[in-house]
């Protein structure tokens, strides 16, 4: 936080006398000021000779801080924002759309968790294709396990729009769809932070471009980036994990994206599996979906573990993305 003397230029009330007074209470930066009890400070200022000026200085600081917090929103503002900006992205599978109340909701972080080879990556590819074809939006796919398969995307795109012939003319719509899905390989959590910040800057600087917007951000899988740093001696891994969650939720809310992340399962007590990344991660995604795949019948079952407006425990099945 800024030291008090950096405010001196803009706000002449925060002069050297005021700073000396604050220093006598151990306040050197704005952070110290926030932590200090304001009433104690005011009563101590009363006892000084320049009490009037000092109290003006305190009020000045308080008003600066007041101006910096986010504007208050009423419930009505939120409802209007939700109706106007935060509709749901259809996933391409009717059963799952019905399960999720329309699909992946913009402004929310959805997590797909499941054991190995249960269909998480396939679900991500399918949802990405639907977002690019049906909703004409950009999709950003962050891939950590080299599992992004453009052939599968082309397959799903072909499924929704009918058979694709080898004719050159037919490649145009497929190319348009595939051009909207942007894939980036990340192998490091710091690299992902870099990317997300870069994305934030890109989105903010092009606020008014309305023809084609980013609609879906997929991170497959976020757990493989967090597992190498989680646990251990220090709390940094934990802090980084929560920062990632915070950044994803901020991106989703401010720029009206749907965020989809995948997570894996680990063995819990008494042999049952549980989602990885621990207890603190449970609060991060808005919606958590458990996937399981029945090998014999190749049916993939999606069941809700957590949802802000639906009962958990409801499930829907989808044939396992026939190959």
């Amino acid at each position, binding site marked *: 936080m800024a030291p008090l003397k950096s405010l001196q230029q803009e706000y002449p009330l925060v002069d050297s006398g005021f700073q000396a007074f604050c220093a006598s209470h151990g306040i050197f930066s704005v952070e110290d000021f926030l932590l200090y009890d304001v009433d104690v400070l005011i009563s101590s200022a009363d006892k000084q000779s320049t009490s009037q000026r000092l109290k003006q200085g305190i009020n000045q600081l308080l008003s600066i801080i007041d101006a910096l917090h986010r504007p208050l929103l009423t419930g009505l503002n939120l409802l209007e924002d939700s109706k106007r900006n935060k509709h749901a992205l259809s996933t391409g599978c009717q059963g799952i759309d019905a399960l999720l109340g329309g699909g992946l909701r913009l402004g929310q972080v959805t997590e797909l968790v499941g054991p190995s080879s249960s269909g998480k990556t396939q679900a991500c*590819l399918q949802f990405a294709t639907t977002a690019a074809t049906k909703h004409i939006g*950009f999709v950003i796919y962050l891939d950590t396990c080299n*599992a992004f398969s453009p052939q599968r995307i082309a397959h799903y795109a072909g499924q929704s729009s009918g058979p694709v012939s080898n004719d050159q003319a037919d490649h145009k719509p497929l190319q348009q769809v*595939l051009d909207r899905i942007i894939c980036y390989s990340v192998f490091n959590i710091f690299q992902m932070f870099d990317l997300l910040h870069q*994305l934030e800057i*890109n989105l903010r600087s092009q606020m008014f471009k309305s023809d*084609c917007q980013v609609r879906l951000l997929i991170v497959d*899988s976020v757990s493989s980036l967090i597992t190498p740093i989680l646990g251990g001696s220090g709390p940094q891994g934990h802090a980084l994990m929560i920062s990632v969650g915070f950044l994803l939720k901020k991106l989703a809310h401010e720029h009206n994206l749907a965020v989809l992340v995948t997570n894996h*399962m680990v063995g819990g007590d008494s042999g049952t*599996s549980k989602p990885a990344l621990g207890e603190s991660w449970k609060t991060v995604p808005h919606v958590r979906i458990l996937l399981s795949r029945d090998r014999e019948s190749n049916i993939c079952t999606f069941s809700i573990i957590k949802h802000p407006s639906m009962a958990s425990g409801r499930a829907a099945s989808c044939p396992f993305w026939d190959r």
Partner: protein
Amino acid sequence: MEKKESSREIGEERIIALEGTDLDVSESGASEILKYVSQFSRLDGSSRSPATFDGAQTAWTMLSEEKFLPCITTSCLDLDNILGGGIRCREVTEIGGVPGIGKTQIGIQLAVNVQIPIEYGGLGGQAIYIDTEGSFMMERVLQIAEACVEDLSEYGHLRKDAQDSQVKMHPNNVLQNIFYFRVCSYTEQIALVNYLDKFVTEHKSVKIIILDSVTFHFRQEFDDMARRTRLLSEMALKFMKLSKKFGLAVVMLNQVTTKLIDGSFQLALALGDSWSHMCTNRIILYWNSNERFAFIDKSPSLKSASASYSVTSRGIRNSTSSSKRIKMM
């Protein structure tokens, strides 16, 4: 056009020069600057979408790349068929099975097959073989290499347009093109993985890395399972990065262990649940009435299928049993 290009460059230079100093710019001012710069870069004709950053690729460019991505044959036609041509480059494949099923044999076969010249449909590359158990037998490699060269020259004779029927592959050269590393502890293994980036940058024709086996040094002497998971996941990410960056295939051989599933002990691949998520593809080798089978357990683009293969004196080959057929799941 040129004027705009030069003014953009000047603008960028100025911004880079300012980077070192502490700027007194408010947040709105900073975003104005960035908007201005991005406007210039958009004016040069390329259609920048709101989402592109350096290094990103659209699915369309990746589609054409994926079609022409080379595969490394396993010398067994059935196995190649279910794998869509062979072991794919740019992906990390885990192969696991019980002892004696032929994991090391497959590893050695792949180390030889990656060197098949391009004229014969191979990659003409080199191999890195990381041996943790000491199961790499030089005599066996020589045997497989000789058999491979013999098969290729036979194929060369059958080709009608073969101008040069002499195969440019010699068994001694085959041995020369396999870089062998022996690791004796998990720290050596991790140190080697860190070193591989530099090594492959210097030896650009390496096209496959075989790790036999990834499990060995991580099974014993680990009291802290959480630490083991962290180390393994870090190692897996490094392999993923290597395979993507240099376009090579990474094959990791894994052992099996018993696991308590639904009240009974069953065979499962070692290294736990977290490890099973860290590969791109997984192939499980198993016995079925005296025959060896390979089953695709995990793949982003291949069907689940199993095929039989056999281990012969010439290497991995098709199974000679008459009842062999590719079983689709």
